[in-house]
């Protein structure tokens, strides 16, 4: 069929255009980090070099922000979100509370309404007044609070999909509550916990606005802010530093996403549910 052939050429051409659209703004990151004399242009380096990464390693601010501050904040957000959301979701799913679906809906509603900079105005005042300004805890708790409704929703969905008969079979087999939690509940929940934990980590890792507002102490700021200051504060941006730092900062997120996506797919990406 002639029209079928033409259609295929047209759709492939459109596909290539779309690929270029998404690729071009990122292309710079493929070459610049390995080019000692990188500029803002995309240039294939004359010689492959790891010099730019050395620049990062020798920059105290860059390293402390990444290895200490960002890791602390995202790690804290990850552990607290996974723990608290799992407990709550299990309580909602397996407990005998009335109105549990209404509660989760109201939670979701609040989390989509109280969001962005608008929510940070009152949160700043709150954090300031309870003495958590300029602390890691303030940033961590704020981020966890914002993550919780979605995380609880994902977790509850996951737990609801596990048959109750697992726990019932264990009860009939003679297991105590503690044994059921240890032997049955926790192992079966693990994949769900993993998804929520990664989601929380990635969110904490990328968070820019919350730490920008709640932490004034330059030594405590995470990599997101350090990176932003590298290209916005000084007169001429330090291109070698920025290019390599971008790679080091982005890579963990990309790897985590790709692993989780390979295993769980869109369920994870969506973060929202029908």
């Amino acid at each position, binding site marked *: 069929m002639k029209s079928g052939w033409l259609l295929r050429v047209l759709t492939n051409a459109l596909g290539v255009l779309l690929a270029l659209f998404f690729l071009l703004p990122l292309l710079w990151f493929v070459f610049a980090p390995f080019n000692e004399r990188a500029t803002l242009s995309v240039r294939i380096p004359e010689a492959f070099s790891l010099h730019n990464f050395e620049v990062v390693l020798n920059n105290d601010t860059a390293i402390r922000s990444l290895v200490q501050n960002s890791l602390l904040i995202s790690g804290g957000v990850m552990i607290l979100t996974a723990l608290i959301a799992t407990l709550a979701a299990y309580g909602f799913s397996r407990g005998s509370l009335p109105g549990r679906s209404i509660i989760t809906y109201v939670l979701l509603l609040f989390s989509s309404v109280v969001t962005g900079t608008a929510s940070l105005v009152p949160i700043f005042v709150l954090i300031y007044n309870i003495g958590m300004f300029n602390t890691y805890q303030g940033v961590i708790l704020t981020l966890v609070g914002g993550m919780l409704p979605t995380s609880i929703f994902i977790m509850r969905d996951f737990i609801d999909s596990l*048959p109750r*008969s*697992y726990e*019932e*079979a*264990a*009860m*009939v*087999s*003679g*297991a*105590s509550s503690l*044994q059921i939690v240890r*032997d*049955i509940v926790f*192992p*079966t929940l*693990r994949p769900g916990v993993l998804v929520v934990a990664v989601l929380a980590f990635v969110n904490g890792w990328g968070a820019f606005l919350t730490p920008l507002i709640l932490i004034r102490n330059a030594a405590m700021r995470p990599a997101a802010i350090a990176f932003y200051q590298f290209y916005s504060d000084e007169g001429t941006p330090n291109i070698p530093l920025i290019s390599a730092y971008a790679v080091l900062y982005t890579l963990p997120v990309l790897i985590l996403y790709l692993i989780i996506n390979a295993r769980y797919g869109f369920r994870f990406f969506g973060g929202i549910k029908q």
Partner: protein
Amino acid sequence: MASINLTQLRRHFGAVKAVDDISLAVDDGQFVALLGPSGCGKTTTLRMIAGLELPDAGTIQIGAKQVTALPPRDRDIAMVFQDYALYPHMTVAENVGYPLKVRGTASSEIRQRVQDVAKQLQIGHLLERRPAQLSGGQQQRVALARAVIHKAQVTLYDEPLSNLDTKLRLEARAFLKHLQREVGVTSIYVTHDQAEAMALADVIVVMNEGKILQVGSPKSIFQTPQNTFVAGFIGSPPMNLLECTIDGSVLRFTDGSRLPWQHALPTTARGTVTFGIRPEHVTIRPIDEPGTLPATLYVTQMLGGESLVVTHVGEQLVSVRLFTDEVPELPTRIGLAFDPARVFFYGADGNRLT
């Protein structure tokens, strides 16, 4: 092993009377099937015996022990679930050994007993696999193994074969009966499949809408159904039930046709009653033969060793079972003759008239 006694057991979900004041005595070592359509209360009854559901009223006794409010683990029971509930993160051996593990049995003894049970259930070669790597039939056996390993006093089955396809289900049914004869433990078996209940049980309990309608051996349930529900539920196809009016020694059917009835009628039978006869007790006669009920041929089905002839009497269908592998050539209009000894009459309340 132990007997089970349910007394005035009740469980309502809001306005739904899932289980409505039922009483039942199960003897030591008996295999009892709770049979009924979905929503009849059979699973709720089973779950109350297991302790997974608590009754609103009534008592449950296992052996000499009152267990009504005890948690499942203090009842010394085992249960096979409809979805098998095999823990996905444990191997087959770990699944089967779990009831022993939670009782603190030494791991060497667990290993030995898992081996023994696995051999008995012919799953020895599967012990290191995970449930996801097993076929449906294999999963079913693993679930059985987990239920028999700790030699509980009572084994409860919640539709354990309903997730298998027809061929596997027949195999599993035979295997289960064989196992039951070997193990001989008191068992309660929930099913909606009357053939399964007939094949397996010592005693069948037919339930509907939260009530027990009849308790008896498979033979007595089949041969003398005590009400129209049991009559219409047991047998494949079930009993023909025809509405008719008693007019002296004549039965008048809804299409106006008349059947002279020279045989004895139940003393309480008068007015409108339900006339019941199993398809195998109906014979086909020429239309003009006296003492037959005129009917219109609807369809004939060859079922292998037998044939099923479906006819119309007015608006009502009457099935006739012929034990022949030759589908007979029949005229459109035929007469139906009934074996009078096999005819039942049911009153307006659905109960058998005697």
